């Protein structure tokens, strides 16, 4: 059951996250956008604050945030800087995959590094010709002739924080189906190239990762051979969609803040057409947060409905973010389009939310084809 108010602990955490983002992240957002990078020092700071892979339980060395607190963290981060939020998203997806599907040795080796920020993880699913359709990916993992491990060959593109990552979770096709591998950046046979000048989340340091016969030991296989699609991919993307949904709510809030302070200063808030745009932002933000919290609770409860709840939340929230950012620019007119205007960045970042972790069209297809059948809207 989705809760409608925060506990004292959650309120305290929200205040702490908000303060951190206001001090350490939001002031850098325009620089991240302009310079198309995030400093490694910020990654270290996020780790020190327990914000990397904060969903990992305490008994495994993580912070063990509850679903609501996790959602609040990602919302605040999305409000401050979508590029930094995307860093959390992909790193958390990799770490969560190691936690859920990695064997004891893999977990023992990698979880401490991923939680401490010593190793930054990057999720390498997307390919130039197949996008993020795991069923169609073409990167190959050929068994090594000596039987110990695989040789990976293929190209991954638009890999978030690929420029900065220390380890990639690479999805590749073995003779037994799609499999997931942890691939250290310094292995021979990997070339990482920056993919600059994207429309939005320009600080997220996208990369192309070319694998040319890169040898990976069998120990780096995450989950069973051939089991990555759909199980590993869906598990990781479900958490990623929650993060993007929450970050999108953060964008709505940032857009609302910009639009209202400008309209108040200019005296345009008295116009009903401006009020309409502000009202849409407020209501969409609240509705989106409820959907995101509901998805978070489903994921933490390991509810069967979790993957779809996350898809629904991501679909609604990313659309709300795009609408809110567009309206914020509209409220501000030319000032909202100016170089360095936060609204211009929000507008570009929000568009990206409609594409990553499953495009609008993928979400619509999933929800439209399957969700109407189960009576879930009638039953909650």
């Amino acid at each position, binding site marked *: 059951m989705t809760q409608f108010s925060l506990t004292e602990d959650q309120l305290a955490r929200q205040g702490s996250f908000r303060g951190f983002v206001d001090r350490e992240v939001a002031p850098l957002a325009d620089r991240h956008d302009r310079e198309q990078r995030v400093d490694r020092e910020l990654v270290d700071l996020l780790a020190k604050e327990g914000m990397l892979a904060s969903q990992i339980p305490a008994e495994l060395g993580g912070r063990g945030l509850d679903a609501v607190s996790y959602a609040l963290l990602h919302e605040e981060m999305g409000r401050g800087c979508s590029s930094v939020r995307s860093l959390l998203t992909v790193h958390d997806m990799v770490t969560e995959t190691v936690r859920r*599907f990695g064997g004891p040795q893999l977990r023992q080796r990698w979880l401490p590094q991923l939680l401490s920020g010593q190793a930054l993880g990057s999720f390498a699913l997307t390919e130039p010709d197949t996008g993020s359709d795991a069923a169609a990916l073409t990167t190959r993992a050929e068994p090594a002739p000596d039987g110990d491990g695989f040789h990976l060959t293929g190209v991954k593109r638009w890999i978030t924080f690929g420029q900065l990552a220390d380890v990639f979770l690479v999805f590749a096709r073995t003779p037994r189906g799609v499999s997931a591998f942890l691939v250290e950046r310094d292995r021979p046979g990997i070339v990482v190239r920056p993919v600059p000048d994207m429309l939005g989340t320009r600080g997220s340091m996208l990369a192309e990762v070319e694998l040319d016969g890169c040898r990976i030991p069998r120990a780096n296989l995450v989950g069973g051979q051939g*089991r990555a699609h*759909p199980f590993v991919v*869906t598990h990781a993307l*479900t958490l990623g969609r929650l993060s993007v949904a929450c970050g999108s709510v953060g964008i709505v809030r940032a857009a609302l803040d910009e639009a209202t302070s400008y309209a108040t200063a200019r005296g345009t808030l008295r116009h009903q057409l401006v009020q309409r745009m502000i009202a849409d932002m407020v209501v969409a933000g609240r509705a989106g947060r409820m959907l995101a919290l509901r998805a978070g609770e489903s994921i933490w409860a*390991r509810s*069967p409905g979790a993957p779809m709840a996350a898809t629904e939340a991501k679909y609604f929230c990313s659309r709300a973010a795009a609408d809110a950012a567009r309206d914020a620019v509209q409220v501000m007119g030319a000032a909202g389009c100016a170089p360095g205007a936060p609204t211009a960045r929000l507008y570009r970042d929000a568009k990206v939310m409609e594409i990553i972790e499953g495009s609008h069209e993928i979400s619509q297809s999933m929800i439209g084809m399957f969700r109407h*059948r*189960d009576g879930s809207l009638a039953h909650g």
Partner: protein
Amino acid sequence: MSVAVVASIEDIREQARAYLASSLGQPVSDHLDVFAAGLANSLFAAQLVLFVEDRFAVTVEDDELEIASFASVDAVTAFVAGKTGVGGGH
């Protein structure tokens, strides 16, 4: 969702049948591969694993994550029966 009381293989079958029918919006014959038939997608496969773990209080191990184990009422029934050690109820 509460954990089901599983006394027999028919209990498991009934639970699986009911879940698939309600999720897919239509009754499905026990042997029908819902993925091959285009009634379900990859997201639903992950959902089914969570359903099995949740409803029958079992843990699906990594090496058991075979889509074939979750593709039909018959497959889910056999999988859960194997995990729980429940035999036939007739």
